[in-house]
Structure formats: C-alpha cells, structure tokens
C-alpha cells in the first residue's frame, strides 16, 4: 500500500535536499513529492507519497522524517479520510480533424481542453490519481506527446487538530504521543 505523508518543514535552503537525501540514504522509495508554501510564512507543506507495503518500513520512514532537524511535523494520513488530488497537463499532437473526438473523450472524463493550436491540443485535469490514470488511458488512442503530472497533494477532512501531528509542549503528552505512533506502526 502507498503511504501518504503530510510534512511541515522550515522553509530553509536545502530542505528538499535533506528530505530526498534521507530517502535515498535509507533506501526508501519516493513515489511523489509536492512542496509549496503553507498558511504560515517560513513554513512549507509537503505531500510525500512513499511506496512501502510493509508497516514496519512505513514506521521507519515516518520516524526518519521526524528526526530531521528542519522537519516540524509529519502526519501519516494514509488511512485517514482526506481529499486527494493530482493535477495533469496532457499534450496531444492532432490536426483539427481529431479535435471533436478528443473533445468528447476529454469531456466524458471530466477534463478540459485549455489550448488548441497548430497541430496540438493541451488538456488539463484535476482529480484523484485513479481518475487521472484513466483519463490518460482513454486518451492513449491519440498521439500523446507530453504528460506532466504534479503528483498527489492531500488534505485531511474536518477541523484540523494540531495535537495529532505536532509534538506537544508538555513532556508527558509528548511521550504518550510517541508511544501512540510507535504502536500504530509496530504493533499491528
């Protein structure tokens, strides 16, 4: 199963390097990594999708991320209710004769044509990973020349609670928090 992690990091130079260096060093697989600014200045939010089926390994990834000094919090939302989205741009080489059939497939898949020019069409879509993959499959009958996927971004549904992802102030709480995390990965 894929593991989805939402990571808050200090927006310091080299932070991306630190994260990817850790994944590479530990031989963990990153499937996608999206980073952008968050609601707080100086702090970025990342969505990282890792491909590790084993729960123990996923725990290792979680705690190794947390160990990085510039990482503020890590939330593993793999099995929590959340909104998952990916955005894609697809370029198809096609003369005007193909435009209507491309338009039909696009529309049926809930995507949009955003550019039609000399010999090429660009389609955009936002949706769950599966829907994007389906769209690409359905368009594969045409002459696809470029695909640009962003990778997944994700957000938990409901009112946000800091207590779940940030180590809290009181040491007692922090110890319980760590134990809860340990149990969630290693006692299943």
């Amino acid at each position, binding site marked *: 199963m894929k593991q989805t992690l939402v990571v808050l990091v200090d927006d310091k130079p*080299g932070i991306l390097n*630190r994260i990817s*260096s850790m994944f590479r060093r530990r031989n963990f697989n990153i499937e996608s990594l999206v980073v952008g600014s968050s609601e707080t200045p100086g702090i970025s939010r990342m969505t990282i999708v890792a491909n590790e089926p084993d729960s123990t390994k996923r725990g290792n990834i979680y705690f190794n991320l947390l*160990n990085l*000094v510039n*990482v503020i919090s890590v939330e593993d939302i793999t099995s929590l209710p959340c909104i998952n989205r990916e955005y894609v741009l697809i370029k198809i080489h096609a003369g005007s004769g193909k435009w209507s059939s491309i338009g039909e497939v696009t529309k049926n898949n809930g995507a949009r044509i955003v550019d039609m020019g000399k010999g090429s069409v660009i389609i955009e879509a936002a949706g769950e990973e599966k829907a994007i993959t389906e769209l690409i499959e359905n368009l594969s009958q045409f002459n696809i020349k470029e695909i640009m996927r962003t990778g997944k971004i994700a957000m938990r549904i409901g009112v946000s609670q800091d207590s779940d992802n940030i180590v809290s102030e009181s040491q007692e709480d922090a*110890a319980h928090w*760590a134990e809860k995390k*340990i149990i969630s990965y290693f006692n299943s």
Partner: protein
Amino acid sequence: MGNSTSKKVLTGAEIIWECLLQEKVSVVFGYPGGAILPAYDALTKYKDQIHHVLTRHEQGATHMADGYARASGKVGVAIATSGPGATNMITGLATAMMDSSPIVCITGQVSRSVIGSDAFQEIDISGIAMPITKHSYLIMDIRELASTIHEAFYVAKTGRPGPVLIDIPKDVQNESIEFVYPTSRIELPGYYLPQSPLENQVKSAVELIDDAKKPIIFAGHGVLLSGASSEIIELSEKSGVPIATTLLGIGSVPDSHPLVLGMMGMHGEAWVNRAIQEADLIIACGMRFDDRVTGNLKTYSPHSKKIHIDIDLSEFNKNVHVDLPVHCDVKIFLKALNPQIRENNHRSWLKSISIWQQDSHQRDIIKTGSTTLMGAQVIRKIWEGTKGDAIVVTDVGQHQMLEAQYFNHEKPRTLITSGGLGTMGFSLPAGIGASFYGSDKEVWIIVGDGSIQMTIMELATAVQEHVNINIAIINNGYLGMVRQWQQMFYDARYAETPISSPDYVKVSEAYGLSGQRVTHIDEILPAMKQAQHVNGPSLIEFVVEQHDMVYPMVPSGADLHQMIYRPYNNNSDILKQVKEEAVK
C-alpha cells in the same frame, strides 16, 4: 549567563570565538586557509582563553575533536577552510555520525556574492555533509551567526548526539554586528527529546523481566552517552540478569563484574553469542542491532522477546523486530524501572552460561608460551602495565578486536574506537584529542602498521603540542584483518595486503619523539615503563607474528551461534600451526 549586558559590536570572526567561549570550549583542532583567515586572525585576541591545536590534516582535526568528545563527554570542535579543507573533514564527520559523537565542525566558505560560481576553493560542504551529519548549516546572514552556533551545540549534544557542520562565508566573518548570545531556550519545533518514562511501559518491561527465565541485558554506546552505568548494574544485580556489551558499549560496565559476560557479535565471546541465541528475553539498552552484532537476522536470537530502550525513534525495528520499543533516555528509564523489578538470581541460566564459558578457553593464545610476539600478548601486557587504568584508543583491524578481547575495561569512556564506520587512521588523532581532556589517566593508542600510516603525520602535531600519549604499533606486516578474510574466504590469496613500513624508531627520531622496538615478550613491560616515564609522546613498535588470526569469528552474514573457533591444538606448537594455516 547574563553576559550580554554590555553592548559589543564585533566582527563575525570574533563572534565565532565569543560563541565558543559561551559554550565553554577551551580547545579547538584545526587548520587555517583563505576562507577562514578572518576567524584565525581574530583568534589572536582569544589565544589566552581558547587553545588551538594545529593538526597536519583536517581529517586529523575532526578525529581529534571526536576523541576529545568521547573522552570528555563534551562537544569537540574542529575548524577548517573552504574547499579541500572542508572535504578533508568528510571522513571525520562520517565517523562521528556512525558512532553518535558530538562534534561541531566550522568551515570557512567563499564570500556570499560568489557562492555558486565555482570560485576558488568553493565547495558545497553543507550539502555534501547532509547525509553524514546530524545537521548542517550555511550562514548567509550575520544576524543568524550567534544563534546558529548556539543551536549547533545544542543539536550536537542533545538527544542522540552527532556531528554538526557550520559553514561560514568569508564576508560574513568580516561583517560587524552587535554581539548578543542567545540565552533563551532553543526553539526547534519538532525536535523532540523524550524525558519522562511512561508508567505503562515500565510496567510492561517489569512483567517481561520478571517472567523471563533466560534473560540477557545489552549495554551499548547509549549507556555511556546517557551515563547510565550504575543504573544498568543495579538492574543487573537486582534482577540477576547478565550483561553483554557491544564494541562501543565496552567500559559502560566493569569487565570484572561477575554479571558482565563480555562483548557480543562477530568477534565477541562465543559464550555470549550462545547466550544471546538461547535467551528468552533481550533488554537492549542504547544500541542499534548492527549487522556486526546480529549476524544472520533470520536466525538471530529466535526465542527471545526483545525490549529496546533507545533515545532515537528511528532505531526501532530498523534491523530486528522488537516487542517493546521504549523511546527514552536509558538512564531515565532504568531509574524508573529498577525499583519495580523483582529480585532474582537466575541461578541455572547463569550456570549454563558459565559452562559454555569454560568450553571456549582454547582460543587463549596468550597461553601459548611462544617467544614470537602475538598481538594478543602485547595487548594483555599493556593491560597489565597500565593496571587497566588507561584511556585506550584503537584503530581498525585485528588489533582493534584483540583490544576488545584482551584489555579489560572497568570505567566508562576508557575505550575509544571507530565502531560504526571502522575508520583506519582514527586512533592517532583521536588519541591526541582525548589527551586534551586532561584526565589523569594515561592515553594508549593501539594501532596497526597499516592504520598508523594513514594518519602518521599527526606525530608532528603530538610533538608540537607535547601531548602525553603512548603509541603502540602492532606491526604484523599485513593489513591483518583483510588478510584474515583472504585466508578464510579467498583461499589464502593475499592480494595487496602485505604492507611495508618505515623504520618506526627512525621515524620517531625524525619527528622528535621517543621510539622503541620490541620483539620479545619479556621486553614489553620494561619498554612500557620507559614510555610511561617520557614526558610527551612516545612510540613503541611491537613486531608480532604476521599470520595470527582473531578468533572466534562469526563470518559475515552467518548465524550468530555458528562461530569459527581457533582451530589449533593447544598441546603442540601453536606458532607452527598458525603458519601452516596461513599458507594452506
């Protein structure tokens, strides 16, 4: 501290030294160059308060800082210029990282305006160092200089300690700003240090320990780092559970204690490994189940439940599945645990272990009666000649394992060795660094003829600094440990392991230290006496049997209980057997 009342405008270069003073640094190890020149120039004003040791190579500076840190428990500091000075620090940073040693390395960087232009001696050291440091900084704003240095020391020494690198551009060193040293608590959200033991975890541990029939305690480097020696002994004595140590755990518990079994792992004691394989409970304290300790993971201690107490969350279930991961400082947790466990003595379990112990005495090469020196004999004599009361710093190879086997350590921080990275060339500089701790213990550096030649130039540092160190070169004419593997696993084809040496007595003379050569067992103690009387560095070359092996041994990846024992028969000429084995 309250030092920041008087307003001082200082240069970045001066701020570096002011910060080190605030961190109570009294000695730094370094090497100057262009990009760090402002800092060195400012050092002239701080000469009375901070002693700078000029090394002969920046790798040496990092190992010295490391050796100092391991001997003292304080943060060691190394300093170097940009480019090649910085890259020379890589091996030392990696060594400190693997062994959780707190050092801070300061490097000069080219000026900010030319960063990224491949300027002369520019290298992205904070980037290069990322995977081999606990953290690294590049300071692009003088306003962040003091707070970053403050934070760097905090990161290096708290939690699981480790090396931190601070890269400081030359123009930042030249700028000026009002100096204020931060005195407030360091705010690092997400940098979480466990403090309080959890009642339910203590309870679970107590249940496991009270129920166990064949339990064993592991003492790793974390026991030294958290200062938990007396707590772990208390646990052992009260519960009757014996203790095995890792290589870096040596010294955390007294070897002479009846419940201390000895070292585990590849060259550990056979009875220890056997006990681990038969145990029904492992209480692992501050160690990380390295492959040199576990052997084949699939067959590793198959019947045991495992309690793992560690301060680093990322260590749990990294190599070995554990039943009770306890995220806590070892000392804090044991303090909570000890009052609650039941008194016990595990008589029959200890009895079986002592029977296995008798079986494996045949490895005892020191009983050969041979007149050719054996490495093990030399180590044993050094133990005798120092009454075991010395800081021993080893290099990497057969002599390192022999030290672990034949030198009994009674006190914490008396063995300093590169365990995780296995860095040849570590011992001489690390030993020099350790000698700056200023303990009244003698410093003995035990080093192979291969290893000494990797960092031999630091002899000049030892002489210039007039440090009291004793260097024991165990000269077997080979890269011995590699030769051992070639003998065992490559049909005795000794590819590039015979290694020549200079005349070490003449080398000593040339460098200006006292040098001796010993070839006979009866000369060992007198030579040591002479070395001990020298005020300053002194060197003894021990010419030992070339083809000796370190036994017992678990071949890499083999089951822990399948050790290879010393194959010789004690009743006939062992030396002859050693030689026959080596050419077979």
